[in-house]
């Protein structure tokens, strides 16, 4: 536990891991724009996601689920997703079904509880990996264009690309504010177990306090941004249909997209075939 708390606090505050975190998030956002997945048409991928993100929830067939899981594992590998995201995925799967599993055992469940939970775990894993493939693997801007084609609100697609633009800046600023605390603050001694807990509390407090300067600094920024958006015709474009057409003109379905869809379809057919044979 003590070791864990130590690790936790290091994770929270250490410059090294802050930097690591930043680079991982950036890598995930910008570093894999030349993969097979990134080159696919966003609309095709969204349709693909609609299948793999929803259908596994409805299905209870083990073979079908296993095949779907394998497909999304392959696409995740193809998308060259950052390590951190995969780690989060594992953590997420555990926290969604793993804890239920433990709780069932405590409340007197037996082996019969395991089978439905295994199916549930496969479902969760497949759906998560499908979303990781699409949302981590795709260039954010192409994703927002794709969403726009499906008539998602303009503000959402704007938010996505704006977030990707802002993220490095925000993180840098947050980091500097934290560094200010680190240089001037006097964290409690983390030698003993109690000290470690105190240290952790101190750090959480610092993170919360850090949002005071961050809020004011970001407020200054967002004013310029909104003025600049006005000059650049953002509000004008939001209500203009021609602009939308113009934006979406860059989307094009290619043979690669069709092949990608057909391969996925083929695998699903094979799984159904096997499942019906059994």
């Amino acid at each position, binding site marked *: 536990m003590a070791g864990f708390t130590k690790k936790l606090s290091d994770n929270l505050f250490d410059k090294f891991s802050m930097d690591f975190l930043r680079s991982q998030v950036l890598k995930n956002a910008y570093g894999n724009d030349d993969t097979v997945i990134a080159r696919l048409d966003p609309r095709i991928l969204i349709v693909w996601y609609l299948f793999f993100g929803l259908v596994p929830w409805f299905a209870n067939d083990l073979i079908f689920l296993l095949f779907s899981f394998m497909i999304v594992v392959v696409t995740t590998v193809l998308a060259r997703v950052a390590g951190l995201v995969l780690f989060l995925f594992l953590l997420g799967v555990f926290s969604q079904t793993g804890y*239920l599993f433990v709780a069932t055992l405590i409340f007197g469940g037996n082996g019969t509880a395991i089978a439905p939970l295994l199916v549930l775990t496969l479902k969760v894993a497949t759906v998560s990996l499908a*979303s990781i493939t699409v949302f981590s693997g795709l260039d954010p801007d192409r994703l927002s264009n794709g969403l726009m084609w499906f008539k998602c609100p303009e503000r959402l697609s704007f938010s*996505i690309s704006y*977030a*990707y633009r802002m993220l490095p800046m925000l993180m840098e600023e947050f980091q500097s504010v934290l560094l200010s605390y680190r240089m001037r603050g006097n964290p409690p001694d983390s030698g003993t177990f109690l000290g470690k807990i105190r240290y952790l509390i101190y750090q959480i407090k610092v993170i919360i306090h850090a949002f005071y300067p961050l*809020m004011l600094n970001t407020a200054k920024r967002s004013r310029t941004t*909104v003025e600049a958006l006005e000059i650049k015709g953002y509000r004008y474009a939001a209500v203009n249909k021609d602009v939308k057409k113009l934006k979406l003109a860059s989307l094009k379905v290619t043979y690669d997209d069709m092949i990608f869809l*057909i391969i996925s*379809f083929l695998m699903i057919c094979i799984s159904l075939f096997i499942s019906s044979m059994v």
Partner: protein
Amino acid sequence: MEKVKKQTATQSQKLMVFVLTMALYGLATLFTELIPSFQVGIVEFSVEYFLFIPLTLSMLFDPMSAALGAATGELVFSEIMLGQFGGLGELEKFITVTIGVYIAGRMVANPAKRKMVGIAAMTGVVIQQLLGTIVDILKVQFAVSDFEAVAGLPESVFATEGFAFLNDVLFSGILFCLLPTLFLVPKLYGKIEPLLGMQPRSRETYLGAINIKVVLGCIVAFAVAVCSEMLAESGTSLIDWEAGWAGSSTALFAGMIVAAAAALIVLIFMRRGAAVRVNGEEQA
């Protein structure tokens, strides 16, 4: 003329508040996504979220923009950016966060009054958590098809969800929402508004107490959230997969495989042809 001007001004201010909340809360949720939670027995202690950021901003600025900004920020930064997007189910979180933050923001008439700020912050958290818990319980019920049949499962679900709710309200709610909001709102009040070129909230700019319209709006929104969640979780009744498979013949699937494979081969050839043509044009 005067009126028109005022309208555009508020439009731009709303956009500023939206952008501000989205960026800040998005960043915060990105971190909470990364801070591991630790478990003592079955009670999970986690830094659920930094809801104090949108709560603070919704009490100082336009509540609706702050609420939507927060929900969008979480969706975009932590869900989409980290690839943790959970599909249609995210709509539930989106709507509950929006409702919680919005109501909290509407409750505060004078941000300088600490008591009201505290009550509003807690109300916001409790509403958000309660709605989330209701959805969560329904969710497990639908996801595990023979929910009642598994011994101990229903009790464990109610117990863990109940615990999670209390834990979230008492732990995250007080530590991460109430205290920081109480700390931040009075400090920022009157200071952050001029940076965005706005007047601080006062009797004139306050939207007025929560009325029936707000409550009805929230109920409708929550109903949408529940529906979307159920749609995401309980497809079994909509599409009868089991029945479909039982009745279908193996030959049908074999046929589909052949058709798909044929299509694949044709496509690969067509792609080659296209590639050759492009190359040829480039050379010419």
